[in-house]
């Protein structure tokens, strides 16, 4: 039972680690503000 629990823990830990490694808040839809800069 403990062996199984440890295995599951490691599995979910690796899964969470992968998600954390691949997710980011950097939005790809950055506005091209330098071009809008002149439009006033």
């Amino acid at each position, binding site marked *: 039972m403990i062996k199984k629990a440890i295995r599951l823990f*490691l599995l979910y*830990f690796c899964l*969470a680690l992968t998600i954390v490694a691949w*997710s*980011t*808040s950097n*939005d790809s839809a950055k*506005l091209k503000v330098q071009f809008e*800069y*002149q439009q006033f």
Partner: protein
Amino acid sequence: MKINKDILLHVSMALAAILVLSLPPLISGDHSVLKFQPMINTMVGTRKEQNEKMMTISHALQGNAIFFLGASEVIWSGEEPHAIFNYFNQNLHIPVVAYGGVMVDSVIQYSLLSRFIQDLNSKTQLVLLLSPDSFFRPKVPPKIFEDNLPAVVFDPLLNDREVAPVVTQYLEMTRGDKISHLSFSQMQIRGWNISDIKKEMSWQFGSFCDLARDFYKEKIRLKKAQPELWPSPEGKFEAVDWESQRQQAREYNKEHKITAATHWMTPEYFKAHPKPYDWSSRPPAEEQIVAFKKLIKMLHERHVQVIAIVDPMNPSAINHRERYKQADEIVKSTLKEYQVPYYDMYEMPYQNGWNKDYLHPTDLAWVDMDHFVYEQFK
């Protein structure tokens, strides 16, 4: 009801794994240490990064550094040796913290300083760099709003009677525009929308992942720690040969091909904009003027040592420079009313090589700005 033991084991182990992974970075996020950051260009970041930026700005405003508040002039001058945050920190050893990102205007400057109102006092040394075009723009794209006024800056402002109407109106003006994320308190004002909620939740999750990743990278030293210590205030205003600095800056311009052949602009800008463009024929935006006046009044009431500079404008890149005159007169009279020293590079005789494009300062213009700041605070 009998719960399947296997399912219970899976759920509890999944929760345990998530807890083990997330608790250390979450705890560390609340225990930030004071770091010296000479240039800050956005208030966005992970919780830890935001805390560090807040601490840096707060410490600087308490009188531990000259605080330079500008706009894109700051972020686009990182390489210029005489940009104030480079020259003062590295050559004069006088601590300067500069804040500035694209399109930072008077409303953002007023909001940002209002957020740190408790730190403003007679020891605060503040330089305001005004972008002439910002006075003609009543609103900014939501991305700019998000960059400079995230929840950590915005939310406390709602309790301030003076600044709350300004930021609320400013946020409401972005209605209908495409956003990447807004906090829930901002949505309460701007209006609820399922897609905005989804974006915010996804952003919050991404931000947490950034926090956790940075934490573990730092632990296993994948991410090299940056210099952190606040410089000791050993720097004195020793004599500077400004003419020699100007000569160095002219050489720097020459190296970067900012010459008469490109009408004193960078070759890249000149190639993209060979003809000058017309300055806006609209009058200055009321919202910006109101915010600017409130800002100067607030600084005066807090006895802040404040000085102001306005960018030079390249006559080879702009037609109808005189259209800025109205805004300049308002700025001048407001600053005069509160006895704020003003370095008006718009009104001064134009020096070739001051701008790398239509507005942004070159190293040569930075020398003149540095000289003014030096004389005012020495």
